[in-house]
């Protein structure tokens, strides 16, 4: 048993070592090293909210706004109340000059739980309501008082989850501008007339796709087209894509 425990702890040791080493590198200001260590950890173990928000901080310190915002936004998808990610986004909007669309009331409502929790809750309440209606009919017996109460409760819960589901859906429609000096174009073509400049790290709402372009709406409400490879959706791979130039720490 002792042997088993020692082997188990030894196998876990590298994981803790990555996390600790990353935090240590961050503490001493070696953000590039911290990013490398946390990225290795993410590739091995997968990502979670803490790791993504920490990675976002390090990326921000390295001046890679797009990747940082994407990390924080993804951290919020996994934990909508992650304090580090929320602070990072506030900081980016206040000091960094990035734009982020104001959340609608449904999005604010949806931020109480993750999108998956909303969906599970909605599905569960739907099925409970359905079976509260169906089961007495199948048994050819009158509905009991308890059955009526459960039905009422589940329908109430279902109604309450609808705004949450809608907010989670609109949240999923957002993307982050990957590069600086990207212009919103009037038409979905390479030579489309530029109508507004965006900067790296700006969060936009996405709409339909056409001709390799995506129609987006900025935080200011301006709508235009950008190339599909100029943005990265918030939902997606665990780590941001390798789009940013490998800049060293400033």
């Amino acid at each position, binding site marked *: 048993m002792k042997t088993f425990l020692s082997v188990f702890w030894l196998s876990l040791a590298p994981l803790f070592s990555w996390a600790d080493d990353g*935090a240590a590198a*961050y503490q001493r200001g070696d953000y590039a090293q911290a990013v490398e260590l946390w990225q290795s950890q993410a590739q091995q173990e*997968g990502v979670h909210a*803490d790791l993504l928000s920490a990675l976002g901080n390090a990326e921000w310190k390295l001046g890679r706004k797009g990747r940082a915002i994407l990390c924080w936004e993804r951290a919020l998808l996994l934990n909508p109340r992650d304090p*580090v990610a929320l602070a990072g986004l506030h900081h980016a909007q206040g000091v960094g000059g990035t734009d982020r669309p104001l959340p609608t009331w449904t999005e604010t409502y949806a931020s109480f739980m993750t*999108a998956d929790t909303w*969906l599970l809750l909605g599905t569960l309440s739907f099925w409970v309501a359905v*079976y509260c209606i*169906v089961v007495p*009919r199948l048994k050819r017996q009158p509905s009991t008082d308890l059955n009526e109460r459960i039905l009422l409760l589940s329908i109430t819960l279902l109604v309450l989850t609808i705004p949450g589901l809608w907010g989670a859906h609109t949240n999923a429609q957002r993307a982050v501008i990957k590069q600086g000096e990207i212009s919103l174009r009037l038409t979905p073509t390479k030579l489309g007339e530029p109508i507004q400049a965006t900067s790296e790290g700006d969060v936009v709402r996405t709409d339909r796709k056409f001709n390799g372009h995506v129609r987006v709406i900025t935080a200011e409400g301006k709508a235009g087209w950008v190339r599909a490879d100029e943005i990265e959706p918030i939902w997606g791979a665990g780590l941001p894509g390798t789009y940013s130039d490998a800049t060293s720490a400033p």
Partner: protein
Amino acid sequence: MKYCLLILVALTAILPLAAEDQVSWNTTPAIAGPGQPFRLQVHIESDVVLGAAERVVKELKPPRGMALRFSGQLYRSNTTEATLNFSGVAPEEEGTFVIPSFNIRFTAKVVKIPEITLHVSSTTGFRKSSQARAELSLPERTYYVGERIPGVIHLLSSEQETVTGSVGLECEAEGFSYYFNGPPKNTDQGMDLLFELTPTRTGNGEIIFNGSMFLQSENSFLTTGRDRPYTFRQRFRVEHVPEEGRPADWTGGIGKFTAESVHVSNAKPEVGEPIKLTAVLTGIGNLERILPPEIVGGDVWEVLPASERRRRAEEERMFVYSIIPRLPGKQTTPAIKFSTFDPSTKKFTRLEFPVQSVTVTGTAPAKVDLVSIDPAAPANQETKAKLPDLMPPQVHQQAGVKVILPLAASPKFWATNAVLIISTTILLCLSLLSGYLLLHPEIILFYRARRHVQQAQRQAQAAQQKGASQAFATAIVSGLRAGVGALLRAEPQALTQGDILRILPEADPVLLDRIFREADGEKFGGRVTNQLLTDAPKALELLQKVKAQL
């Protein structure tokens, strides 16, 4: 007298109009083999001095597969006769080919040549391999607007004929621009004529190539020179490069290209020192039409627009960028990447030049923080609340995910729900149906009775055909009892004629009595034999009436 003179003048004026030109023609050989060269001679006798023939070629429209060129006129001055020679090559297929009627413009008048017929047959013994020939090499596929299609016409010598030259190569193709790549190139087998085509609009059509080659025939006695025409026709279809799946970074390249090389003019520049980044693209395609790909410098590089160079002979294209480093340290040059379209596979391919490592020396310019204080604010006012700062991260050990995807994007989740919905709906429907049937038992009762009556009808008809009177009566009684039993909610076997009459009051009691006696008579006494079949239709009608009530 005056009238006689007028008539004479009028007749004199009409006489030339009435006169007809005599046109005759002959081909040598009279019957040509497939692909065999032939000579056409047209002889014209007129009433005026004809002079020289002009613009013969323009009106000559040989049939498909046949090459025909005007090769000269036997000219004698001050004669009313003319002989024109044409050289041609017969089509590759057997049959009769008609050269449509055409006009020849002489100095004096226009003469219409009637249709000329050429017979082509493989029985002539012509051996094609002994003749010099021309072959077209042009890809047979869908073409795309803007692409460069290289083609070759091979002029191939034979054992007896040597190709010595080429003349008058023309290309007729609407919606194409064409370019002949200089003089013919001598090869081991003869000559090659290189050309390039570029489609300029979409559509279907036919490309026609016409030309002549000079030949030298050698035999044991003498050496003679001659010309021989050739013609090619090839159907084509031109489309735009497909929009579906077209990458955003496609810059107009159609063909097969290779990212040949990339290099920088200085691998150790200082901050702010411009260097040249040169990328060389090679391949077969419309190199000259590719727009230089845009590169993104980001924070490290400042990129100036690209200049470009192309050398047609070397089939290469160079993109030269001026890039200026902004930050010191080990840096990599911006990536040069774009997509091209391969017309043979109809797919887009991504081309990427490798990035180059550069060591930038010097120091970065100092960063200037933006002032966020309102300049119009009073001097002694304290600064507002401090802007939010980053929180120190804390990474706890917990389970991670490789890809952040919502449950809503999971097909398994929705498939499970769909299965649940379908099974619940089926269960509910079955439950409702069984409940309804329990409330209305007559539905099943009538259904079964109807089936029983139908079966009895079939048995009765079979018995009628066999002439089995008792079996007929038994089937009728069985059917009547089953149907009436369902209607009266009674056991069929317990029913009598009186019960039948309650449901069928209009039935003939005598007939009913005979049926029952025929069926059950043996149980209770004698039975009437072989009398019932005469009234079989009436008996069957009774069954039909019962069935109608079910």
